[in-house]
């Protein structure tokens, strides 16, 4: 009986995190963040991943991440963007998890690494899809954008984490 309670609680909690991430994604779509370069996003939904890494088990965070990516692709158009989102999201998750285990990086640093690896993941998949290395022309700008958006997300993530820890 107790075990079922715990499991139900975990499922409900995870679903809530997915819903939160979905809202972040939706809000982001509403705000036109256009730089003419494909692939530059704020990545607001990654706040959930970042904070999740500090409060939940990695497997739970991963589940929330993949569920969110698939739902966003279904709900907000664009199924063709699914592989790019998955590649970027999963690589970003693994990199952030790694940096967290390595210790010595701040929340902001972890988030920046996440932002950079997200863009790298997407670009690599793009290169495979169009079967051309020419897409790496966008790499420098995407690397820098990844650092910058990662920093913004990291600052928010750090503040929220601090607050949550005090609860």
């Amino acid at each position, binding site marked *: 009986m107790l075990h079922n309670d715990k499991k139900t609680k975990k499922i409900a909690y995870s679903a809530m995190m997915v819903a939160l991430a979905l809202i972040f994604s939706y809000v982001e779509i509403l705000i036109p963040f256009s730089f003419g370069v494909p692939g530059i996003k704020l990545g607001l939904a990654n706040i959930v991943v970042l904070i999740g890494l500090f409060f939940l088990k990695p497997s739970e965070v991963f589940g929330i991440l993949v569920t969110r990516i698939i739902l966003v692709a279904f709900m907000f158009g664009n199924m063709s963007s699914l592989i790019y989102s998955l590649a970027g999201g999963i690589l970003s998750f693994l990199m952030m998890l790694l940096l967290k285990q390595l210790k*010595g990086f701040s929340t902001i640093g972890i988030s*920046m*690494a996440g932002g950079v690896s997200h863009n790298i993941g997407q670009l690599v998949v793009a290169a495979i899809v169009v079967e*051309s290395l020419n897409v*790496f022309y966008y790499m420098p700008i995407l*690397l820098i954008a990844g*650092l910058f958006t990662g920093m913004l997300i990291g600052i928010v993530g750090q503040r929220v984490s601090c607050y949550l820890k005090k609860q």
Partner: protein
Amino acid sequence: MFKKKDIILIAVVLAIAGVMAFFMKIGQGNAGEQVRIIVDGTEYGTYLIMIDNEINIDTELGHNKVVIRNKEVYMQQADCPDKYCVEHKAITSTNETIVCLPHKLVVEVLSNNRAEEIDSVTQ
């Protein structure tokens, strides 16, 4: 707020970005002579940049219209969802490309001297 390892990470990423940008700038620059269109990894056609042209590409993925005019190449029309390819500035120099990702289409400028190009990965 920032720790030492963060700074190292930032520096490394910026350095890589800088080096890549540098080498790409060097590898570019010469006025192109040919325009090659690749769809889903296979060559669709090669054209001369000197000759004005309008190329319609219709695949099961969608429609693209590439225009070559005044020694420039640009995407005039596409029915892809993001239209990044249409927004892209016109290209003229070797190794410059316009990509339509949803349609797996690449438009690249080449020179007659193939040694100047970055190799493409084809299967």
